[in-house]
């Protein structure tokens, strides 16, 4: 929870900085933010956007919107704080025809196979929300990796809370 809101604030701050054309955001801040959100994706898009000639409008969009949504232990209920970002994603998907891939994940506790189902439930919860916002279901692919691909190593609540997630590709 704390991490999540911290991240949102950081994300917002970064977005504002970028919108103001400010190039002073340190690599470290960006790397930190990236670490907490989308480890596997967005490597170049977010991390060093300013240095790689990405257009400003893309920058704003990518930085503003969370792409990772976290869940409570043993739960597949979407948290209220995910709604704003997902609504914005939905608007974006409605304005293009991109395929949407949602990857569901679980923490390491409990049964490895049951966690596959839990990850799928979580990804489906995000998919349902996007569909309610008008994104065609047929464009959304849901894949669960269960506990196989943790974002954060470690057997403690701080790692687990980062691993119970859905990543929007």
């Amino acid at each position, binding site marked *: 929870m704390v991490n999540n809101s911290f991240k949102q604030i950081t994300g917002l701050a970064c977005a504002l900085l970028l919108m103001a054309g400010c190039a002073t955001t340190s690599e470290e801040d960006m790397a930190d933010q990236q670490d907490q959100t989308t480890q596997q994706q967005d490597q170049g898009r977010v991390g060093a956007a300013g240095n790689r000639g990405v257009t400003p409008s893309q920058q704003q969009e990518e930085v503003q919107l969370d792409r990772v949504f976290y869940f409570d232990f*043993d739960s597949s209920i979407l948290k209220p704080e995910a709604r704003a970002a997902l609504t914005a994603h939905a608007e974006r998907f409605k304005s293009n025809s991109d395929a949407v891939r949602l990857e569901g994940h679980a923490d*390491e*506790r*409990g*049964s*490895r*196979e*049951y966690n*596959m*189902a*839990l990850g*799928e*439930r979580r990804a489906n919860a995000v998919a349902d929300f996007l569909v309610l916002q008008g994104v065609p279901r047929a464009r959304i692919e*849901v*894949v*669960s*990796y*269960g506990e*196989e*691909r943790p974002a954060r*190593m*470690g*057997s403690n609540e701080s790692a687990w809370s980062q691993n119970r997630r859905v990543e929007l590709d």
Partner: protein
Amino acid sequence: MKRILFILVLLLASSPLRAELIIEITSGVDNPTPIAIVPTGWNGTAALEESINDIVAADLRRSGQFRPIPQRDMLSSPSKASEVFYRDWRILKAEYLVISNVSQNAQGGYHLEFEMFDVFNERKVLDLAVDGARDQLRDLAHYMSDQIYQRITGIRGVFSTRIAYVEQLGEIYRLMMADADGARPRLLKESRPGEPILSPSWSPDGRYIAYVSFETTRPAIYVQEVATGSRQQITNFEGLNGAPAWSPDGRKLAITLSKDGNPEIYTVDVQTKELRRVTDHYAIDHEPSWTADGKAILFTSNRGAKPQIYQVTLASGRPERLTFVGPYNAKPVVTPDGKGFVFIHRDEGGRDHIAFQEFKTGNIRVLTQTQVGLDESPTVAPNGAMLMYATKNRQGKGILAAVSMDAATTFDLPSKQGDVREPAWSPFRN
């Protein structure tokens, strides 16, 4: 129970490609049977690649039921019956004495002879010979262990069986197979980066392993012939394709598919691929395991809000809840004798351990007691005497551990390299 009785580090020729399992015995039974395994006689010129008596002693020690007498304490080293003086072994309190000889056979392989003596009654109780190929010294030793174990305990030994397991090295997943003592790991299937392999399950005849692979970027179920490596895809539906479990007759797999929106148990005929839906509920139904008679399937479901174990009779389709103690019970695996099942049982403190529940009484026995409380993937040896499962060691590394079904003996099999998980104990090999 005694903790940390002995630490045993086992063997293994090292090769950088093979991540080997090392066995550490972490506790043992209070009164294991003392047995003397005399060094195996060998008349060849070059030294043997493996020490047969050491392998046999390690096998018997690992069962928890035996205490092999150290070689340095032995007063004599007989290699034939006429050289056996019982008083030498009575002094050491050995209840049994085993002597053996290995020689080259005409085919360039090995011929092993062994005899076992009951020290107190001063009589020979076993006299056997067996032949193997050049690369089968370990097989010969495990055969000898099996015969000794069965002669003394009356229970068939599992030292010649195999374990399949999944090993992860960075982003690479490997389906592996090793001897039951962790030696001779062999690669059965290696993934591309980031494409998990999971849920290995042996066919009842031991010829095939079913498993889940993400090689199509999504989970699909495959059946692979162990000897040849030839494979066929069994299912590749949208959504979850998971948790294959062979029917006792080897003709079907019970599996989980979520193609119709949420995870349900199905059976699929391995030959015809004919699907039959078993459960029908909006909750998660997952992790099927057949009863011994093949007439019912146990599974995990959160239909009562929290994951618990249910049983559905195939003829009626009627589900019945089996577990009631604890906030989380999952991954049932019916034991080989069909009398109960092992499963993941979460205690009130949130720690996951492996427990056994008897069908008849409903009584639960918790079998594992790791500190970390992240025990999962239970699998039972075909003789029903030992349970293997996956957990983590203090360094957070995935290891395999084993415990006797009376919870008295435990040993760990950490891998030298990657994280290992999801052990599947093979059936008896004939």
